[in-house]
């Protein structure tokens, strides 16, 4: 959440005095604290984080404190806060708390234990998926915004096509051609490096001039890619890929991440386009600071605010998407509990055992709501227009 670049010795960027720095952070917290809903969201988020973490430890291992997979067929569909029937249960089957806090499901499994286990799934899916999408977004947006004007020449495209089609052919079975094409492409890339050392630099202009013609800029290429990705109906695309791939939680995280990076790309690009023209970047460039250093030390800290906001809201969306997938039966494979599949399992009993719908439903609602409120509060607090007190 640290918006300001941290001072580093030797960096010629003028370091703000410590006092002023503190007031900036204090200003943020003051603005953020005024927003009660956002504070509530933050508090709920912290509680949820702790619950998920302790839930992971309490429900995993060979002898967990709360066993989410323990089937007690004689105790099925008990309402919340019901006392277990001690006569029919073996000692190890008695729930740890002495009551079924959230009731039991149709197999007599303790819903409280299953909810604890599912919390971790929701948390990791949200964070990993958004982590992937933010990383891709920063990378693509950074390139588009910073190196955007650089043209891509036709030979670049040809090499790219060679590499891609080679990979595709290797994937479909034509190993020989599949290896030959990328080798050809790589040879084209490294040929100048090899020749530069030995002979004169005359080799470059002698090549076909057509190959060195400029086709499109990097920026256009990346933004067209974003357009292409935006054409897919996102939930449908995720559903297709998840249904075709073997069921696993990692696939879901990766697929959600790979289909939601477009927003972050656009934000980072827009920020970079405006930051690139500013004086401190020009100054850094004049000092001979390397491109990577300018990007990561000078520009990124200033561009990260909108990404942070969209990431917070993205976590909420990812949790909802995972719950939706689990609900349709494409989530995490069955013995493992997630909030979506607890709800999905309980849908056959909505009139007999409504707690199987209400408990996971409200849990998802509260967690997603807290992320949304927190994200919106963050947006307001980081907004310079509001900071000046308008």
């Amino acid at each position, binding site marked *: 959440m640290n918006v300001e670049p941290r001072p580093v010795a030797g960096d010629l960027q003028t370091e703000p005095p410590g006092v002023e720095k503190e007031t900036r952070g204090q200003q943020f917290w003051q603005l953020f604290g005024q927003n009660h*809903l956002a504070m509530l969201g933050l508090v709920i988020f912290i509680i949820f984080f702790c619950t998920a973490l302790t839930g992971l430890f309490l429900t995993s291992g060979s002898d967990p404190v709360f066993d989410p997979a323990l089937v007690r067929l004689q105790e099925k569909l008990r309402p919340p806060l019901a006392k277990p029937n001690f006569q029919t249960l073996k000692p190890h089957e008695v729930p740890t708390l002495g009551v079924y806090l959230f009731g039991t499901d149709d197999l007599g499994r303790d819903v409280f234990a299953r909810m604890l286990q599912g919390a971790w799934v929701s948390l990791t899916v949200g964070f990993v998926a958004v982590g992937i999408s933010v990383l891709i977004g920063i990378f693509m947006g950074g390139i588009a915004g910073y190196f955007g004007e650089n043209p891509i020449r036709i030979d670049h495209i040809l090499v790219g096509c060679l590499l891609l089609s080679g990979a*595709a052919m290797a*994937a*479909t079975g034509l190993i020989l051609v599949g290896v030959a094409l990328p080798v050809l492409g790589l040879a084209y890339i490294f040929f100048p490096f090899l020749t530069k050392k030995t002979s004169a630099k005359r080799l470059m202009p002698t090549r076909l001039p057509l190959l060195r013609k400029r086709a499109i800029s990097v920026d256009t290429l990346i933004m*067209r890619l974003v*357009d*292409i990705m*935006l*054409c*897919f*109906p996102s*939930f*449908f*695309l995720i*559903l*297709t*890929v998840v*249904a*075709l*791939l*073997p069921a696993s939680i990692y696939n879901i995280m990766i697929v959600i991440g790979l289909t939601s990076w477009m927003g972050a790309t656009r934000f980072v690009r827009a920020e970079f386009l405006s930051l690139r023209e500013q004086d401190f970047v020009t100054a850094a460039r004049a000092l001979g600071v390397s491109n990577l250093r300018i990007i990561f030390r000078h520009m990124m800290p200033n561009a990260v605010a909108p990404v942070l906001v969209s990431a917070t809201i993205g976590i*909420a969306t990812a949790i*909802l998407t995972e*719950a*939706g997938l689990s*609900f*349709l039966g494409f989530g995490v494979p069955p013995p493992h509990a997630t909030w979506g599949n607890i*709800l*999905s399992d309980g*849908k056959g009993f*909505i*009139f007999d055992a*409504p707690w199987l*719908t209400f408990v*996971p*439903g*409200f849990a*998802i*609602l509260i967690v*997603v*709501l807290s*992320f*949304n*409120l927190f994200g*919106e509060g963050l947006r307001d607090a980081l907004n310079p227009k509001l900071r000046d007190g308008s």
Partner: protein
Amino acid sequence: MLSFIGRSVVQKTVTLFFVSVVSFMIIHLAPGEPSQVDPLNPKFTPEMVERFQKAFHLDRPLYVQYVYFYRDLFAGRSVSWRDNQSVLAKIWERFLNSLPLFIVGTLITWTLSFPIGIRAAIFRGGLYDRSTTFFSYLLISIPGFFFAYLLIIVVVNRFHVPVIGMETFGLGQAPWPTLFMDRIWHLLLPSVLGATGGIAVLSRYVRGQMLEVEGQDYVRTARAKGLPPEQVHYKHALRNALLPFVTMFGLILPGLIGGSVIIESIFSWPGMGRMAFEAILARDYPVILTVNFVSAVLVLTGTFISDLLYLVVDPRIRL
């Protein structure tokens, strides 16, 4: 103007081509074969699999399959692998089922969000504003399937009407008001559910636009002239705040074919979403790819229309 139209048509065609390539690759490079959907079925002998593969060109290399598939699609000849019906006819039939949901849902969204958003903006910071803010966050955050079950429990317990499916089964000879009300009840819940997210987002957007315009100088001038507040709000502010929403008419176009998978499966509504879902389960590639292609066309057309509308509505924009 003409050059703008020409340029975007070319650009969107190129985008569409890449979308078709990418979706084809995603589906065909995923592990598993469509001919092995049902390996336990004793009727599925190796000869059957071979005949199946031959009939649908599955034994040819990928790029040949790609050309075959899109040739068939544009000629309107592509058939579903599951039941050999024409894909376009199938989609059209399901589309007609989804259409009422879409129309009612869109109407609910647009008629509710404008009054809510405008009122929230006029009474900024008041109780009404804060409560609608909170409720719109609530509506964005609530999982659709959970909300669906809440509504089902409430409606079924209080009004004792059946809501699952498109109509009550076996109502055949009932008088028409009963049939009509039956259809309305079945239509109501899924379309309300489809509209909730839209209401929340759109009303926030209306509020934001309204607030921005209310801060402009000409609104202050109008107020300083001593115009009555209604005239300031509805004549000076609202008209200008409406500008971006004209373009949103283009953006609701993709919703035509979207159809929520989750809501349609909960309510057993035989619409587009359900069909796409079933096609995914059965690895019915022609149906999946066609749905994807049509929806990409609609997205691109939608953005194109909204660009054009912007051009028409806002005289400041010159290309």
